[in-house]
């Protein structure tokens, strides 16, 4: 039986406001980045804003009516609880080998990176968090253009098992184009002068030279590493 009145409008309002607050918390703490890209930030704040307005409006309703819509508000409670579930997110450390790296799926949506005149002159590429996907795409698409460039890049170092070479690794990151449903590991193969067991599975920054390699299906990039050091793991492993 539905009875609305007394505390029920307030209860309705609290459900919607709790949902709004949990969304704001989710976005403000950056946890949303494990599920969607930063481009959704504004949309999620918008959603929280709408929920908040609904909550305030519901809580301030003075006129009592018989029929209650409280059952529908289960959804707000559901969303609020969903936000706080103890998820285990996909990490590069969960990848067993570089075979999982999917470079073929990289697409035109990723912005290409423009080199400054000085970088072209010095033949240097400094890959940042924001330009990782762009550089991976550019190097895989046209490695000839950047052959012999010195590159500095960070990511997780994973042992390659398919190459048959002892010193071959792949530097990888997780790329999200839309949401958690489409997270892909992307990266660039690297060759060390000798096996680097201590850096395997670790988060590293390496400097090396870009070389063009050949396979039956075409060319692909490889970094011949000159220098390697451990670096700090970013809070969110994904790049967007």
């Amino acid at each position, binding site marked *: 039986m539905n009875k609305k009145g007394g505390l029920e409008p307030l209860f309705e309002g609290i459900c919607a406001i709790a949902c709004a607050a949990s969304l704001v918390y989710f976005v403000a703490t950056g946890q949303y980045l494990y599920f969607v890209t930063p481009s959704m930030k504004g949309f999620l704040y918008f959603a929280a804003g709408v929920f908040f307005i609904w909550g305030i409006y519901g809580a301030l309703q003075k*006129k009592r009516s018989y*029929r209650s819509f409280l059952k529908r508000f289960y959804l707000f409670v559901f969303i609020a*609880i*969903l936000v706080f579930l103890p998820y285990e997110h996909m990490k590069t450390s969960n990848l067993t080998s570089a075979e999982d790296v999917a470079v073929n799926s990289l697409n*035109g949506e990723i912005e290409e990176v423009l080199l400054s005149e000085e970088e072209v002159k010095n033949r240097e590429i400094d890959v940042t968090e924001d330009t990782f996907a762009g550089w991976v795409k550019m190097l895989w698409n046209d490695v000839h253009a950047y052959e012999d460039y010195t590159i500095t890049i960070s990511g997780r170092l994973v042992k390659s098992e398919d190459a048959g070479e002892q010193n071959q690794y792949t530097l990888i990151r997780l790329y999200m184009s839309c*949401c958690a449903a*489409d997270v892909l590991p992307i990266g660039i193969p690297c060759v060390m002068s000798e096996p680097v067991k201590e850096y395997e599975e670790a988060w590293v920054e390496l400097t090396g030279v870009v070389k063009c390699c050949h396979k039956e299906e075409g060319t692909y990039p490889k970094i011949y590493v000159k220098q390697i050091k451990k670096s700090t793991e970013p809070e969110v492993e994904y790049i967007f």
Partner: protein
Amino acid sequence: MSVSVIVVMGILDAGKSTFINSYIKMQGDIKTDPLIIQFEQGDIAVSLKKKEKNLLWIPVKEAQQQTEEIRKKLYMRIVMEKRQLVIIEWNGLLSFSILEELLLNGIFAGICDIKATIYLADVPVLLKELKYLGQGPVSQIMNADYILYRETKGNEEKEFLRRIKLLNKEAKVLPVSESNQLKRELKKEKQSDAMGLCIFASVMMILALLLPVFGGGHSKINDVLVVFMGLMLQGIPFLLLGVILSSLIQVFVSSETIKRLFPKNKLGSMLVAVLAGFCLPVCDCASIPIFKSLVKKGVPLYAAVTFMMAAPVINPVVILSTYYAFHEDVRVVLLRMGLGVASAIIIGLFTAYSGKKKDLEKSGPLDALCSCGCMEEGSRISVFIRHSELEFLDVARYLVFGTFISAIFQETQIGESLCVCEFSFPLKLAMMMLLAFLLSLCSSADAIVAKSFMVEFPLSAVMGFLVFGPMMDIKNVLMLQSGFKKTFVIRLCVVTFLVCFLVVLAAAVFSIGGLGYE
């Protein structure tokens, strides 16, 4: 002090007095006589004629116009006489909101506890005349806990039950012969919704706490939840945009204005729908509430269907995402748009020539009747806020369910494992479309997933994914069911699949460059 109130409603000669009489007879354990308040112009309940001290008769006109005076009169009879039980016989044409205003607000706030609302239905009259009787009967049906009806012919009864469910899903609908069961139920105390909500929240929290125990680490449960959360966060803001746009149309735009925008000839009307789909940046989650709004506003079903089918495929956001996902290949964008528009128009034409009036039953014959708050009284802004909120909550349930199923499919990779099998082109195309249906991806973001299938499938098969997916998928089907008959939704789904399949197949053979086009 709390007074139990039972409200008996229904149009003239529906049997309200008879019901009240028999109900009173069954209440042998009541210490004081119940007060019967009759907001009627009909006969006074037979057994009460001799006990006028227990009867209060209020003319319908007074109830409509003199709220404060009537409230005082009721206060004198209910509170001053220390009544335990009040039975109200509510006139069948009076809006239920008048009763709410009288008994739940003002000096009565917190005093009257409406235990049950019972609607006695005259099936033939309701079937024929409900839409002419105004908002009174509709508001009563929508607020009824129990609906009693006299058994009638098979089809008539079936039709009646179906229509009642459209207006009030929660009411218990019983034939009069089972009214004793109802009378017994009225004695029981029922659990409140607030209690249910608390129990639900507690169970959810316990499950959340148990998640690390049973589904922690990189278990399938965790992965499904992560994908589910991703899809939900992606879908909710766009669904909100959709319901806000749809509520704006519903509350602020008159049916006449909307109808003026759509030409009377079918093709012209469908072209306007396509143009609207091109201009509005709405994905499939948002296009469904707008579609429902358009239908309610009297836009022809075929035009509304064309809009719903075209908008998620040809809107600016989808165009851009497809353009980037396919390496800035304009041909893919044009193909997707062209095939999308062609399919949408063919589906619209099919609806125009095969659609039955019954298809509109959730919105048409009962003209703009819904339980989404749009019938509430108040300023337009407050109706807009209430309408958008309730419509969101109504449709979002299906979004939650649909995305959850989709997340399971994605994580179990059933679709992908089927796709690696060797099939002929038509089967590959059908497989891609089936996959689009199961994955239920947002149309604004499905291009990138479609691109990843290009390794295994030719573009012409992937085009099936890109054209059909935004038009119909699990969550769309579920969301449509919140507003339309199941048979209509199933037929639309099948027609959409067949049309998209044939259009893409024809394009593959004649235009794209053959079945082997990569």
